[in-house]
């Protein structure tokens, strides 16, 4: 099997024009003759981006889980919940389904995303040939579930806006919301920066 890069062919990312890319000197880059977008074989600095964003996401993951994400005042009770304590509270109240959803969306998904992306990028960097097809499926799955990982942020934002009953009930976002949103956004960016073709660069099915 021949890759585009092997025969020095590349498709413009903007207009899908297939061009033959000759070698340029340093400090020069190829631009699409039709739309003038830059033309490259692979995403530029993809691995660096992914790694940097993952590290950033990981750094924010700890405050996101350790700090209070939401203050709820439901007269006469006042609660300050981290994500985990919120899940525990829901579970103890018997809302098992809700607890599981929140647990999956807010704790499991970010962890899985961080882990899986880390695995993908490391394996790509090491030019691993291990089951590239499975890894590609994993990447696609990551893209799909990534959409749902903002759930907690949405919940807090919605509750904050909706539940403002003066003295009786009030929801205010806690300091963990921003780090949590950061984790979600950074993992999304990281997964978008990842170039799935890198999986195949050495693991090609001959």
């Amino acid at each position, binding site marked *: 099997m021949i890759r585009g890069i092997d025969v020095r062919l590349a498709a413009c990312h903007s207009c899908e024009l297939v061009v033959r890319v000759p070698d340029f000197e340093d400090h*020069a880059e190829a631009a699409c003759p039709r739309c003038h977008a830059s033309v490259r074989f692979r995403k530029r600095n993809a691995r660096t981006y992914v790694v*940097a964003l993952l590290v950033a*996401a990981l*750094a*924010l993951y700890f405050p996101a889980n350790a700090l209070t994400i939401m203050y709820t005042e439901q*007269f*006469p009770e006042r609660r300050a919940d981290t994500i985990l304590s919120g899940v525990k509270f829901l579970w103890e109240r018997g809302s098992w389904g809700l607890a599981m959803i929140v647990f999956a969306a807010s704790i499991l998904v970010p962890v899985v995303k961080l882990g899986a992306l880390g695995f993908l990028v490391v394996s790509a960097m090491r030019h691993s040939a291990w089951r590239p097809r499975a890894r590609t499926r994993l990447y696609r799955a990551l893209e799909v579930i990534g959409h749902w990982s903002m759930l907690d942020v949405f919940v807090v934002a919605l509750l904050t806006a909706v539940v403002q009953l003066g003295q009786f009930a009030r929801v205010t976002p806690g300091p963990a919301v921003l780090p949590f949103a950061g984790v979600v956004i950074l993992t999304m960016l990281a997964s978008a920066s990842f170039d799935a073709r890198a999986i195949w660069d050495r693991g090609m099915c001959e």
Partner: protein
Amino acid sequence: MSDPVDPRFEKLPVPVARQRRPGWPSAVWLVPILAVVAAGVLAIRAYLSAGPTIEITFDSAEGLEVGKSDVRYKNVPVGKITSVEITEDQRAILVKVKLESGAASLAAKDSRFWVERPRIGVGGVSGVGTLLSGAYIGVDRGTSTDKTDRFVGLEKPPGVTHDQAGRRFRIMAVDAGSLGVQSPVYLRRQQVGLISALALSPDGKRIDIEIFINSPYDRDVTDTAVFWNASGLDVSIDASGLHLDTQSLATVVAGGIAFGFREGDPPGHPAAEGAQFNLFDDRTHALARPDPTRLPLAMRFHQPLRGVGSGTQIDFEGVRIGQIDAINLGYDSTTHGFFSDVDATIYPERLGAAFAALVDEGRRRGKTGPQMLQALVARGLRAQVRSASLITGQLFIALRWFPGGRGTTPVAERDGVWVVPTERGGTDQIQDQVESIVAKIDRIPFDAIGGDARDAMHAATSLLGHLDGEVVPTAQQLVGQAGAAMAALHDSLSALRDNVAAPDSAIQQTTRSTLEQLENAARSLRGLTDYLQHHPESLLRGRASGPEPR
């Protein structure tokens, strides 16, 4: 570069070459750096905002809930309860509290913690707000610079917090009465402080009370101030009548301490913090001027002294000059009689100018105190139990004059005790009179009178029986006969009516024929008289021929 171009792709367009912008690929590393910094800042902030964790033990965790109850200083939340557990010895509740960073100073060694919950007491209602919000832990910040993380919680809010301005004083009391922590302290019936602590002294012989007087009234506590127990209703009935004294309605139930100043005392200087005072039983005792001279007085009464006891007043010319200390019953083996020995104390200064004059006179005549008393006794001074009020039955000992009194008992100074002879008391006389009345009533022969009355009743009864048995039947008989007589009479009358009134009765017919004959006779008589009128001569000559007279 030197790769040969695949002939299949030779026709494909070739991208234009352009200057690559000087790449800054590592700029993306700014993102994780920023993220790490942000996380670090958050972590540091969280660490800094987390104050110390302290442990407080309470007897009861009533109303305390993890996550719900908080710790409040002056009603501002300063910490959260992180756990409520039972201590290892299962005797108390261990509450773990995470204080906020700004409240770290609350962990001073002498800080006090208590559970604020609704309390209803005599002094008022507190903690009503916690009915809705739930209990919380209140804290009074200590002034100590030493820190600790273990506290023993109070069961009640402290009466005085460290930030209150004022001074503490110590009061020694023999009896706590109804006093308790938080009982008010009054000055001129105005609450100026409260009891902040109350405990039995280590030797158990008195009560140590710590009071806290709010500023600025603490300056009113001078070294001449006297304190008394203002608890409850001070109702006293004595020879001068009924007294009712109370500071406020609250003290009636909750008790309290009042302080004031004796009349005539110098104003005094404000007492130092922690100064000690004694607690008097009541206002009268507290404000009474101390009596410098005390004379022991002994009296012997040959009469029962019911109603007289320790504290009974001794009155001389209307002045309360002392009181009884003790009464002892004695037995005289020569007369085989019982008597009561009364020990009393008198304060002669209370006589004022009179005492001064007596002392003066004694000095002039060169007589000692006992001799002066002997002179008074010789003039008839006697002690007598008297009733101050017949209604209350209150008794007092009066030193009175009995000029014609019985032989004077010599006054001897017995172990420095002055003895005053006694006279049988007024109540005794009344009692004697009542007794004699009762005795007279006793002598009335109620039994005999009753017997006579019974005999009379017997006679009346037999008379009535006689009437019943004999008179009544006769009377009945008489009535029967009278009835028969009446019937016969009735019969006679009806027969008479039949005989007389019936038209065909014999009497009627006889009467009618008799009347007819009488009529005829009358007619003949009239003819005769007419004739005679016309012919009066016929009386002499006889009847002339001629027509027949009509």
